[in-house]
């Protein structure tokens, strides 16, 4: 499912340390359902980007008038909506950049890698492809010399049993289009940009230090396989056995859970949202075309009139009036950007991929359950 990045891209693989994974999970689940954003620090080693630490961004924008860093005006009627937009825009806000620089400066003193290598964001069921995401990543890719990735952690799907953490970069063609910041139809035709080209996914690996590995070996896992364990004396003793009860590394069997409907419901909800967004974009485009056509019609009638006038004046031996004035008199409407439409397409593709993956897993589980409950049938 991961697209292979082109050979000439500077980063081809991402390696995370276990610490980053844990901090990411912690932060995202703490501020859920708000999106959690933060900065990643690490080092790039050849074509591999190693991420060794992370820290969250302060979510609220400092209110410049009162000087209080945590103030958002609760009397503001758009308080709720702004929170989400603020949180999503945090990585490229000026205050966050200052915060990030300070943090990195201090972290350097304790020997943490001091190179910002990207940012992370949490989402739910894959709804991360929006303009804010793209702008954040463009900001990072422009600023720090192209060695940055965006990590997306999916809270909803990770709680179902398997960790969903992906790394993305913007493709070079999209970055070039971003530089001009024009997403009109002709520029898209020229560059032949499709929505599949916007993001490149990079493979992610997790890496542990030696100390951490020794600590992990020390944690109790499943009970040993030897047969010399003393048999329990009572049922209660079984229930209270610490190896079984509070076992952090016990095989995580949450993903054997058969919960189909909630996943489908949420996905369909988000598909509906995407369709609405797409419809809005279409309406905008059509409105633009209609107003453009109206303007053009007006221009043509004016030109016709001008020509007639000029013919008359030539007859009367007067100088003809200029015919170029229509450019000054009529203002053509500006074409709306097509970026949002492309992002909607990419988002829907993300949902479709997720559903396909989910369908594969669920079909397996369903057939297994069915074969178990109907023992007489040949599966």
């Amino acid at each position, binding site marked *: 499912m991961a697209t292979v990045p082109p050979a000439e891209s500077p980063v081809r693989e991402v390696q995370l340390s276990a610490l980053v994974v844990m901090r990411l999970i912690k932060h995202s689940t703490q501020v859920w359902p708000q999106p959690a954003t933060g900065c990643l620090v690490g080092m790039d080693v050849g074509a591999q980007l190693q991420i060794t630490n992370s820290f969250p961004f302060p979510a609220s924008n400092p209110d410049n008038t009162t000087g209080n860093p945590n103030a958002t005006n609760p009397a503001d009627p758009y308080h709720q909506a702004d929170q989400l937009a603020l949180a999503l825009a945090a990585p490229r806000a000026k205050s966050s950049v200052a915060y990030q620089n300070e943090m990195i400066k201090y972290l350097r003193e304790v020997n943490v890698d001091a190179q910002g290598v990207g940012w992370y964001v949490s989402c739910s069921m894959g709804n991360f492809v929006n303009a804010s995401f793209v702008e954040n990543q463009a900001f990072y890719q422009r600023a720090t010399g192209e060695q940055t990735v965006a990590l997306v952690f999916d809270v909803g799907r990770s709680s179902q049993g398997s960790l969903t953490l992906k790394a993305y970069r913007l493709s070079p063609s999209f970055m070039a289009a971003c530089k001009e910041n024009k997403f009109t139809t002709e520029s898209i035709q020229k560059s032949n940009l499709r929505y599949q080209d916007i993001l490149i996914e990079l493979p992610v690996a997790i890496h542990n*230090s030696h100390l951490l590995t020794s600590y992990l070996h020390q944690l109790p896992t499943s009970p040993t396989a030897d047969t010399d364990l003393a048999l329990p004396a009572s049922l209660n003793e079984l229930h209270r056995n610490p190896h079984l009860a509070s076992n952090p590394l016990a095989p995580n069997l949450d993903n054997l859970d058969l919960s189909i409907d909630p996943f489908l419901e949420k996905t369909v909800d988000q598909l509906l949202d995407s369709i609405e967004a797409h419809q809005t974009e279409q309406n905008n485009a059509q409105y633009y075309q209609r107003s453009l056509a109206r303007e053009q019609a007006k221009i043509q009638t004016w030109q016709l009139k001008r020509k007639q006038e000029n013919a008359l004046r030539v007859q009367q031996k007067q100088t003809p009036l200029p015919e170029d004035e229509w450019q000054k008199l009529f203002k053509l409407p500006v074409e709306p950007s097509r970026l949002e439409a492309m992002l909607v397409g990419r988002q829907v593709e993300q949902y*479709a991929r997720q559903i396909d993956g989910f369908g594969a897993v669920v079909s397996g589980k369903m057939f297994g359950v069915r074969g178990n409950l109907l023992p007489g049938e040949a599966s």
Partner: protein
Amino acid sequence: MGDSHNYLHLARPLAPAPIATSQSSVTAPVSVTLQPQALFSIIDHASRRPADQERVIGTLLGTRSEDGTEVSVTNCYAVPHTETAEQVEMDMDYQKRMLDLHLRAAPKEVLNFYSQQGEGTFPHPAVHLTVSTVAGQDVEANTYISAPIGVTAERAADSCLFIPVPHEIKYDEASKSGLELIAGARDRDDRTQLMQTDLETLERAIEQVLEMLERVSNYVSDVLDEEQQSSTALGQFLLNTLALAPKVDAEDIERDFNNHIQDVLLVSYLANTIRTQIDLSNRLATAAITMGGDTNVASSGGDQQKQQSGERGGERGGQRREGGGGQQQRSGQAGPGGRRGEQ
């Protein structure tokens, strides 16, 4: 962690007034809950220390319950320090700044204290955590609270007694999946583990369950062959577990199964259809422009040229209209092609 230390709960000693906390009227013992990310962070800092330093010191952040008896450590950061033969000095300025920065991001956290492989001599009226990382031995975490004891009046501020308090490392639900993946890397040589897709995780889980079932069934058949001792507790447990299998009619199972499978297939088909539709409409919007020049001012140029291209475009637009209409029917919605036809 399989901590089975026994703790003798001494009453928490009260500190004298100038160093007392606001909640010091309660003398109940303090218990500490550690979050795994704090522990991982400490381990990470420990492995990054400069070569000449034996220890790493830092600050813990967390929350304290209302009456001060429950402390939960959720975050931490390291503070640089210098060591001499007798004293260990911490850079308090750094500490204050980092606290500021952290509080901006997470305003609910409160100050504690940690050190690795040693004890700090800065008694905050708070919790101390030491993590021993001697190579070759277990990584052990111990928590203490401090209480000043005075040897002489002048040195009262420097000396303190550290009382161990019970601690527990809690792994919450969300971290479990991450922890499993991290632990999957510990048996491999290069200590790396690729991210796994859902199918691979499912496969692994099923394999684990199968292995466990195999072990249990081996045990049961051994007991039946009288090769193993039987245990009533185990038998009872197995009976309870097997009784959890639901008793459902065969037709109900079939019906539910079919319904669920159809739901999943339906949504999958729907998502793919929507994706194709959006793709198609986007492409129609951008591709159709080259065909009809009368409806779009592609570039600002001379008006005469526009007039000519407009006329030509009109012809082509007429031909395109049939194509656009046909496509319109197929796509089933009024896309830009349809709109152009109306114009």
